[in-house]
């Protein structure tokens, strides 16, 4: 068993929570990566570069910048998407190195492993999508992206908590989710809420629903032209039902989290609800820019001009709908983990057993801050 000591030199070197920093860098890169990916789909630019992993015969990283920036728009998007994907892959490896070296909690370690696996799979899927020119691969690629984003966000949140000493096993005031009172006060109202509606359950359900919405949206955006109208109608119905579910869940989350002691948590839940409202507007806008004014609305409002296909405004609305969906997913993950579900996730990561994390020899798991400052002595084994 590796001995764990708390050395002063280690403490000095640990003033920066590198796992957290690298994880947030990965989150930002992934957000940009997925935004480029969404634009690639909006402009149907996935096959702008017909070869992979190279770009028009060049090494991907050595493709001339001038041709990338001043070439066709589709090429700019697709090549940019590839470069960002490669950056996300490299950052994932750096994150793995940093977290494993710094003795992260089991949950973080499992999530980092998942992130590395996902980023490798995602890169391969991106390559296969080009090589096979296959819509099904494109759909799976579009589903894996947000999953990776959620995992990266979860790592960043957990690593941040660990750095602040709010990791597994430690029950701080901050991590106490909400009042476990079946009657939750909302302003002057008292709403009866079942026990399952408190704590991290609702944000977790919201995150799952937001992800499923992204999956459903990906099926719509990558629908093959040979698909039957009846099938597509069902897919749209599922997406609309999902929108209703996300809206209800976000509203319930706000209600359930209003008595939370943390002002930030309360605000965060309200922010998610505002994002969902914005998402509904963007969804309506995406419908208008794709199919025009629905017939039931035309009696009241119909523009005298036809919609302009591929207009920058339309592309911004449609792509923004995807990006905001991804942001809602990320925000729900933050809410679920930062103020409630981290302990549960740690328990799951330990398969329900205690004490499998880094230990100080007492049999109890280390708190996050201590674990971060703890290193095995070289040659201690």
């Amino acid at each position, binding site marked *: 068993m590796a001995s764990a000591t708390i050395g002063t030199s280690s403490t000095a070197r640990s003033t920066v929570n590198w796992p957290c920093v690298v994880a947030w860098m990965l989150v930002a890169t992934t957000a940009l990566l997925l935004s480029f990916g969404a634009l690639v789909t909006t402009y*149907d*630019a*996935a*096959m*702008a*570069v*017909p070869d992979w992993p190279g770009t*028009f015969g060049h090494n991907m990283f050595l493709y001339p910048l001038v041709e990338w920036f001043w*070439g*066709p728009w*589709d*090429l700019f998007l697709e090549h940019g998407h590839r470069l960002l994907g490669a950056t996300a892959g490299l950052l994932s490896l750096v994150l793995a190195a940093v977290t494993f070296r710094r003795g992260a909690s089991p949950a973080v370690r499992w999530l980092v492993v998942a992130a590395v696996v996902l980023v490798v799979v995602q890169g391969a899927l991106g390559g296969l999508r080009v090589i*096979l*020119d*296959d*819509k*099904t691969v494109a*759909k*799976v690629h579009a*589903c894996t992206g947000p999953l990776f984003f959620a995992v990266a966000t979860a790592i960043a949140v957990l690593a941040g908590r660990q750095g602040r000493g709010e990791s597994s096993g430690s029950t701080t005031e901050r991590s106490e989710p909400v009042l476990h009172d079946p009657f939750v006060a909302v302003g002057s109202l008292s709403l009866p809420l079942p026990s399952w509606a408190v704590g991290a359950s609702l944000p977790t359900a919201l995150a*799952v629903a937001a*992800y*499923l919405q992204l*999956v*459903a949206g990906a*099926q719509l955006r990558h*629908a*093959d*032209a*040979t*698909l*039957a*109208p*009846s*099938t*597509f*109608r069902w897919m*749209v119905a599922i997406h609309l039902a999902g929108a209703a579910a996300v809206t209800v869940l976000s509203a319930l989350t706000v209600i359930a989290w209003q008595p939370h002691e943390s002002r930030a948590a309360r605000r965060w839940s309200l922010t998610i609800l505002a994002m969902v409202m914005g998402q509904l507007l963007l969804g309506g806008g995406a419908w208008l820019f794709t*199919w*025009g004014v*629905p*017939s039931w609305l*035309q009696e*009241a409002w*119909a*523009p*005298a*001009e*036809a*919609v*302009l*296909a*591929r*207009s920058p405004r339309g592309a911004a609305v449609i792509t923004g709908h995807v990006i905001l969906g991804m942001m809602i997913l990320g925000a729900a993950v933050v809410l679920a983990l930062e103020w409630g579900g981290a302990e*549960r996730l740690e*328990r*799951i990561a330990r*398969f*329900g*057993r205690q004490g499998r994390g880094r230990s100080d020899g007492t049999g109890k798991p280390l708190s996050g801050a201590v674990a971060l400052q703890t290193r095995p002595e070289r040659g201690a084994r």
Partner: protein
Amino acid sequence: MNLTTSADVRHARGQFPAWSVKIVLALLVVIGGTGCGATPPAWFRLNMVEATKQKLTPDQERQVATLMTAMFGTPDDPVALPETGLDEAKLRLAAGPVRSDIVGRKNGLYREHCAHCHGVTGDALGPTAAFLNPYPRDYRPGIYKFKSTERADKPTHADLTRILKNGIPGTSMPSFALLSETQIDALVEYVKYLSIRGETELGLMRAYFELDDDAEGKLPETREFLVGEVLEPVAEKWKAAADALIPVPEMPADIDMVASIAKGRELFYGDKANCVKCHGPTGMGDGQANDYDDWNKTIVEWTKEVVGTDDKQWANRAHRVLDGDSLEPRTIPPRNLRRGIYRGGRRPLDLYYRIHAGINGAPMPAAKGTVPPEDIWHIVNYVRSLPYELDGELGADRPMVARDRF
């Protein structure tokens, strides 16, 4: 160990909570349900409505499919016989999957911009078709509404180009003004290709009805028959479109507009033009509104035939085709002329074409022959004045105007 809850028991056993397993399973079902097999290559769908109407046997359907592939190729590899008058290079730019070539030029334009509504075959059965009102155009009968040619003639290349550039206001058809001239040109050529292909398919299916007994239910697979008798008559109509332009007399430059509008109003309500019958006394489309366009009428009439038949086996097959290869028929409401939305174009000339030749495929009749050409300009002027007409000026008993309704 003191196990107090089922969750504790699960944790002690080293299991994930049940809800997480359920979520993972649900995810797998959703992702798996979308179809994890490779996407099949695009194919031209057989016109099953016509095949079933003509009571073709499976062997005959196969023969039609084979002949069509021989004459027109596939969606990824189109063929343009010289007799069609189509430019195969343009077709190749529009056909196939969406991809850029070595110089960054985008191919597969039809699949990128059109197929999701109009369908790969141009049968108006793209995935999104059911959401659109009116439904997207089915190119296969070769009927087009908005054109500068006589009612029964094909549209010109310029007509289709104008539709692509301007879109069709009041419908889901967008404007593709941001595409290059080359791209729009290629798309127009491909739309003509799908139309010629669709009409040829219809011709082949209907030719079975005229076969001799000696033919044993098979069409002759000779060039004389396939190209000379079926394809060429269709292609010739498209080639002749450029010479079938509607002659338009110039509107006098010194026309008294007030008098012209008054004359137009008289014609609008009169027996000759009788626009009031459908567009209604208010001009808001509140006249006769229970008619169908040709595409929907085909389905409505065939449905009646299917319901009334004694041939149960054929009826069952027909019902399956109706469910899978057609959309729920919709009536076509007459246009509300007070909204200033003109689907076929807002230029006075466009309105002249609509009134002169009517709208092919729609109940809108041609005024040609009943209203003198110069009088058509008066109707045009009156129709253009309708969105701006003041309260109380329309109709003998002041029918309702737009302001009254909203």
